[in-house]
């Protein structure tokens, strides 16, 4: 659909949240008991952090939970009864989600819907409406200004302008949301795209050349680059980058329970882990730098080659939370030939 633009007065946001709670399972940013920012289910708007600050964990768990049941089984005498996951009762509204988290869903939809349809993921995805909040300033390590990911799959984006939110509606699901609470929204008759562009210039989120997409040609020649071993072997394979990443989607399948009753579940998994590809007689990624190389190349070469978009929205969490300070953006620039000098010169002894 063609985009539509509305105004939402800043003092109406609370009412929107409260009323939406009657119709949706509303997820929003809130502070947990330790004061950490998380995506959760605050009961009142007072507990909502309607801010652009980025929580350490992305919002992907609402479509791909960290652990979920694929099959429940029960044995009775000689019979085994097994059934698939139950459908969730209510539609989810992700209220005030960061754009980099919201845009990630469209990117990983590709893998879950090509060929076989992954019904657990796609079911939750189809039921989720995204109401994103645009950042007024870039966050600590993010680089969304360097990635041209499409935002048109994000149902609605709210841009905080002077006195009101400019709400851009991009999908039918977004339109349904606005129609439901239409008395809270006013028509926007100004030049909305111009206002958005000005906002993004000021926020530092306008796209900047060279985009990381342009590193692809260089990366395709860099598989055997000698510096992987120097620059990526500090990775300790902890998986923090993957678990905080909005686009990483790899999983393991395990059984929990006994022969009599239990469940077959899937859990997040990560390619930087030592056992990810270990086989009895053979381990293709037998060194840590090879496992990190998989991570980087999957995001910036393999996935776009297969499905189109980069497997990255530039949220920067993998840089912020990496315990050994590996910087994927700088490594992409270096191995992709956008920069001649390797990152972290002194630290890596180069």
């Amino acid at each position, binding site marked *: 659909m063609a985009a539509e633009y509305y105004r939402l007065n800043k003092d109406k946001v609370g009412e929107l949240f409260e009323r939406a709670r009657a119709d949706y399972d509303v997820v929003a940013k809130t502070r947990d008991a330790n004061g950490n920012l998380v995506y959760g289910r605050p009961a009142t708007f007072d507990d909502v952090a309607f801010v652009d600050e980025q929580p350490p964990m992305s919002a992907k768990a609402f479509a791909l939970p960290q652990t979920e049941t*694929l*099959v429940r*089984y029960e*044995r009775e005498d000689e019979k*085994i009864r*097994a*059934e*698939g*996951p139950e*459908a969730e009762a209510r539609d989810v509204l992700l209220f005030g989600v960061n754009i980099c988290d919201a845009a990630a869903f469209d990117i990983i939809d590709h*893998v*879950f819907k*090509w*060929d*076989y*349809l*992954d*019904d*657990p993921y*796609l*079911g939750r995805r*189809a*039921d989720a409406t995204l109401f994103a909040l645009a950042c007024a300033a870039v966050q600590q390590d993010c680089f969304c200004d360097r990635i041209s990911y499409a935002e048109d799959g994000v149902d609605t984006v709210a841009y905080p302008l002077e006195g009101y939110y400019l709400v851009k509606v991009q999908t039918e699901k977004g339109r349904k949301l606005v129609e439901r609470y239409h008395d809270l929204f006013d028509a926007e008759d100004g030049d909305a795209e111009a206002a958005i562009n000005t906002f993004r210039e000021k926020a530092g989120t306008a796209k900047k050349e060279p985009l990381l997409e342009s590193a692809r040609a260089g990366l395709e020649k860099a*598989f*055997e680059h000698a510096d992987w071993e120097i620059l990526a072997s500090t990775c300790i394979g902890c998986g923090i980058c993957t678990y905080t990443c909005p686009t990483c*989607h*790899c*999983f*393991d*399948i*395990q*059984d929990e*329970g*006994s*022969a*009599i009753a*239990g469940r*077959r579940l*899937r859990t997040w*998994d990560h*390619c930087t882990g030592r056992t*990810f*590809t*270990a*086989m*009895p*007689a*053979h381990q*293709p*990624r037998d060194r840590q730098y*090879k496992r990190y190389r*998989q991570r980087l*190349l*999957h995001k910036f*070469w*393999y*996935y776009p*080659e*297969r499905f189109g978009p980069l497997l990255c929205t530039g949220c920067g969490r993998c840089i912020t939370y990496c315990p050994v300070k590996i910087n994927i953006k700088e490594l992409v620039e270096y191995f992709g030939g956008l920069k001649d000098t390797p990152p972290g010169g002194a630290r890596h002894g180069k």
Partner: protein
Amino acid sequence: MVNNPEHLYVPRLVRVAAVVDETPTTKTFQLAFEDGPRPDFKCGQFGEFGIYGVGEATFCLASPPSRDGLDITVKDVGKVTRAFHNLNEGDLVTFRGPYGNWFPYDGFKGKKLLFIGGGIGQAPLRGLLWACLENRNDFDEVDLIYATREECELVYERELVEFEGRDDIGVTLALDPVCPGEPIPGWRGRTSFVPPILEEDRPSPENRVVITCGPPIMIKLVANSLLEKLGYAPGQIWTTLEMRMKCGLGKCGRCNIGSTYVCKDGPVFNYEQILSFPQEF
């Protein structure tokens, strides 16, 4: 709600109809479908097999589609495979599949076929080999070279004996040499790795395809020998690749080589494709 009447990860239940001891570490399970017809499959495909409470593992479909049921041959290497070895006739296991691509059977018609198996790598070749023997007139010469480390590691021994008695298939069995060239007492086959056998017998590349499966190092050495010493083109060599798999259907992200999902685009590959992959092997 996208409601799949059939959930992607909910397996079917199949019954163990018979268990055959192959080697000290390998058993073949004949599986029967009781909850409905057995799904169609093609030689080269695989499935995710499991035991509730233990988990799933990937095995190739090791019998020809023309036969009833389905055979898998399982080597005991870990958690799930150990649990399979403890199964008895009548037990129920889970099955998802068939998954993956298959050997281009029709493309092989009229050609000379050389099967080269190594160890448990004979399992993915077995279904195709039998399918070819069932339609023997569709093919020119059919030969098998099968190598293992020790004699007790030969799987499908009774079938090998049957092949040796037939005149429409050439069989060469080989054991890894402890001391190269020195015969092993009582051993009816050769004592050699596969490449020296190829370089000695020199099967000509003319109108021949080679179908090989085994440990990665064997596949590599066999391919090098065929390409460099015997004048084969990469397109004449077919193999199946083993990568660690979980979902088997292109979702879990575990089996990739570059942008190729081995579980979807493979496991059967032509050597020409393999040479174009990032060298992750």
